[in-house]
């Protein structure tokens, strides 16, 4: 099915702008994690990708072509909210999927449901939130589709079944499927995703491969002898995303060149210079809620 390209997607509901100027490229056979605070536009983006919501403007292309019914048939989707029929049993849902999708594997669905500990004879209304999520993930994976779009596929699950879902994602990627998923549990995205995008208030805040983001984004910290110090030749460098000052301590959020900036702080007279690695949660917080990422924030860099 090849690369999925979202170009300048915009979706408004009346005066409310849900997604604005959002562009990402998702290569075939990769696991893509979409991160963002509540209400940031993740679900709206998924709905637009599936043709369940019509973009106000912008395009979504599958291998260079707009979504057509044949493409839609090869995309499996797990929505954040359960779409199971309350009065139907799990077995009846399996049967319904079998009749709807030619590629659906009843055997795989049954195996996965058993793995999750879900009884086929149970009615959907008798399933907990987590079990509903797991049922939908099992039904989606058993479709053996080219693209899986999973909106919060681990919500409500216990840690064992969360791990089961992550391993399903990894398994799907191993057979060449493209998996796109969102999760509030950044640690899960950190494990399973190869590339990520952060969406914040409808806009793209950050994107890249998890490995590259971790390699490039560092905090460089130094302690000056007194509070009167200058950051000559540093403050205006475009690789610096933020400068936080707390008394004599200065922290630079840099993208690339961490060792070089460490050397510069050293040359300016700072002691205790160190380069701090950032995990995905740190990187996420710096992108969407900088005030939560560090205690002291200054708008202007000190002169």
């Amino acid at each position, binding site marked *: 099915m090849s690369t999925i390209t979202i170009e300048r997607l915009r979706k408004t509901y009346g005066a409310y702008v849900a997604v604005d100027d959002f562009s990402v490229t998702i290569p075939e*056979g*990769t*696991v893509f994690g979409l991160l963002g605070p509540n209400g940031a536009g993740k679900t709206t983006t998924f709905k637009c990708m599936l043709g369940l919501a019509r973009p106000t403007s912008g395009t979504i292309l599958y291998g260079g072509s707009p979504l057509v019914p044949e493409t839609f048939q090869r995309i499996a989707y797990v929505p954040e909210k359960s779409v199971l029929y309350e009065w139907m049993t799990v077995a009846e849902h399996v049967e319904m999927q079998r009749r709807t999708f030619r590629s659906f594997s009843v055997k795989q669905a049954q195996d996965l449901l058993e793995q999750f500990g879900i009884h086929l004879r149970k009615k959907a209304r008798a399933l907990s939130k987590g079990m509903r999520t797991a049922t939908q993930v099992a039904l989606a994976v058993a479709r053996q589709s080219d693209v899986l779009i999973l909106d919060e596929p681990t919500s409500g699950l216990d840690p064992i079944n969360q*791990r089961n879902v*992550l*391993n399903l994602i*990894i*398994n799907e*990627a*191993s057979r060449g499927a493209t998996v796109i998923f969102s999760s509030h549990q950044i*640690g899960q995205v*950190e*494990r*399973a*995703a*190869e590339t990520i995008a952060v969406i914040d208030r409808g806009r793209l805040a950050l994107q890249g491969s*998890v*490995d*590259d983001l*971790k*390699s490039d984004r*560092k905090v460089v910290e130094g302690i000056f002898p007194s509070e009167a110090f200058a950051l000559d030749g540093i403050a205006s460098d475009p690789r610096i995303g933020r400068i936080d000052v707390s008394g004599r301590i200065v922290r630079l959020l840099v993208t690339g060149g961490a060792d070089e900036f460490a050397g510069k702080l050293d040359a300016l007279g700072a*002691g*205790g*210079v*160190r*380069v*701090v*690695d*950032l*995990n*995905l*949660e*740190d990187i996420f917080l710096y992108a969407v809620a900088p005030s939560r990422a560090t205690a002291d924030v200054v708008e202007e860099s000190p002169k």
Partner: protein
Amino acid sequence: MPAVLTVDPRSGVPIYLQVIEQVKRSVALGILQAGEQLPTVKQLALDLTINPNTVAKAYRELERDGVIETAAGRGSFVRTNGSVESMKAAASDVARDAFESVVREAKSIGLNADDIRNLTNAAIDRWFQERQ
């Protein structure tokens, strides 16, 4: 073999670098022996619950560094051909990285080059004496 490797996905160190470092370390320590087969990309990805392309990237770099070799259709193996050299190289890679961070740390605390040399010599003396 999978039991040999563990990764910390929440660390700020990219996962593929953690895999590379651990395989090199295992080769250097002889936990992984020349000719020994590594898990498939898919198997290691599932064992560690990490992205398969991340594992594939680590294997590619390990191959480029001469630590492992991949036979089409048969899997990846610790190199037998020239394995003494690759083991030594792998060992010194691991040691150099560890050394680098120790020196950086010592410098940032405020030690000068002579202080660090003295500490290094003292450590060498102690460890090599004990082995005799």
